């Protein structure tokens, strides 16, 4: 038996969800979410374990996990900022916000600060165009952003640590 990376909790959660889907392949997305909740990101060994559990080839899990930007294939910081740069947000100044965030955190888009506190990344549409520009901070939405409020948010997070 190979070493298990995923906890009992993961397998129990999967067992519960299994009956909801007509096809075992449909479990891929929830399984990836569950594993990411446990690890914070998705290491290769975990992807392989999920593939084995679901009964598909590892390649298929890789394709799915790399297709969706919300699955992290690299370790991320404690606070993952995902800034939308799609049309609506872009028109409302998302590019300037990205530039500001990069300068403020001292990292490029897609990178993590050396202390592991922040990861900054770009996201296509987050589906909240009415309150553009938007970003996701871990699982929460931060809406109607401008440079002031972004600065305030980052400071607040830094302070809370």
């Amino acid at each position, binding site marked *: 038996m190979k070493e298990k990376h995923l906890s009992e909790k993961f397998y129990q959660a999967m067992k519960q969800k299994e009956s909801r889907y007509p096809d075992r392949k449909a479990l891929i997305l929830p399984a990836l979410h569950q594993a990411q909740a446990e690890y914070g990101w998705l290491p290769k060994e975990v992807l392989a374990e999920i593939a084995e559990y679901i009964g598909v*080839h590892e390649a*298929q899990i*890789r*394709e799915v996990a*790399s*297709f969706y930007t919300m699955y992290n294939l690299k370790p991320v910081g404690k606070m993952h900022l995902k800034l939308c740069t799609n049309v609506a947000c872009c028109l409302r100044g998302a590019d300037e916000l990205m530039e500001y965030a990069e300068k403020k955190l001292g990292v490029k888009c897609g990178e993590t600060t050396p202390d592991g506190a922040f990861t900054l990344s770009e996201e296509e549409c987050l589906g909240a165009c009415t309150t553009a520009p938007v970003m996701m901070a871990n699982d929460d939405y931060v809406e109607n952003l401008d440079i002031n409020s972004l600065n305030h948010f980052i400071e607040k997070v830094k302070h809370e640590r």
Partner: protein
Amino acid sequence: MPKCTIDGKEVEFKAGENLVTVAKRVGAEIPVFCYHPGLSVVAQCRMCYVEVEKMPKLQTACSTLAAEGMVVKTQSEAVKKGRAGTMEFLLLNHPLDCPICDKAGECDLQDNSFGHGSEFMRHSEERRTYVDVDMGPVIQKNMNRCIHCTRCIRFGEEVAGIHEMVAIKRGNNIDITTIDGKQLKTEYAGNYSDICPTGSLTLKDFRFKKRAWMLKKTATICEGCSKGCNMEVQQEGNVVYRCVPRENLEINKYWMCDEGRFNYHYVQDPSRIVSPMKRSGDSWLVSPWEELLVNFRTDSAGTGVMLLIGTDLTLEEMKAIQETAKALSPRAAILSFGTPGVESTTQDGPRDQILKMKSKTSNLKGAEMLGIQPLLGAAKSDVVLVFRGGRAELPRIEAKKAYGVGVFLEKERNHFHAILPGLSFLEKEGTVVNHQGKEQSLKRALLPRGKSKAIGEILMLALHQRNGEVTA
């Protein structure tokens, strides 16, 4: 049979046939990239647009099944515009490196761009670029040229039975590669290059060797195993550059294995013996045919003669040997040899789930049909005459005199006292019988090398010569 109308011509079809297949019958060639008759249909390249009456939008012909009374136009203005639009998108990132690309001349992208694309390009932004991936000894991947038709991914999954190619990321950033850049494991990797509609997956064996349009093509049969895959030999100036599979739905479908594909190398190996020669002490002397034929005849007429027939020879050659033996050495034992452990067709069988067979020679069934018994163990006799096409594995020979007739490499000549060079499967015509009992013809693709002669000719000369003079 139900009927539909394509470009004003009525055509019959079988239920379940798609429009690409049906349109071919009325002579309408529909351009495709992702569609391949041997793979599942995904309709993602959007090249095969056709107009179907009563349908509001253009339809992809590969995923649209023909239906009774359907009226299809393959050449309307809307179709032309649709295809030109698709071509423009597909070429957005494609480099203009046709002059140095191995696929040029037989490239679907090139042909369809010429046939359906526009001569101008509106895209002036930078193209995305990738680093080449080394995919092992057979395939080199150039992702810049890829149009993500995913034929390779589907081939691996559906035919080769191994999911090793993946599409990582999405949209403009998509990357078709192997998991973690690993090397390809399948023994059918050459097919990746055949089905690739661009020059993205190229054969390392053929890379930068020859332009596709210079090659002369001969349809023949692979001699790699008893499957009898149909293949095409492509040569120029008597040098083979490549072998590719030919479609035969009853035998190999559209595919062939790497072993068969690269088997041709021994034919033009510099160490292949192409002049008659005999052993003299520890060295080998090239000798005139006449001299060796006299020796051959004298020795084969004696007692204790054993004739060994390789199961890689054609039916005609085997029969010629049997018939000549009646006159030349009537008391000789005639036995066959080929693959150790697979001496009869009952021991033959599939070596994997796809094409390969256990018998590594092409005509085991044919030898059985002619009633030639297999040799078991070593060949022990005073005189042993070995007839071989080049692929049958030589048995251990314990003889006072041993002759090799056929194709031998220098490293194999130590078994023998004299070699009479014969023709390989690419230099002769003949019939081979595959494991299903299907008779197929070898076609001559190359001229004989050096002083080699056909086995039939060698036997005939040996039979009719007296004291070095050939008499009729």
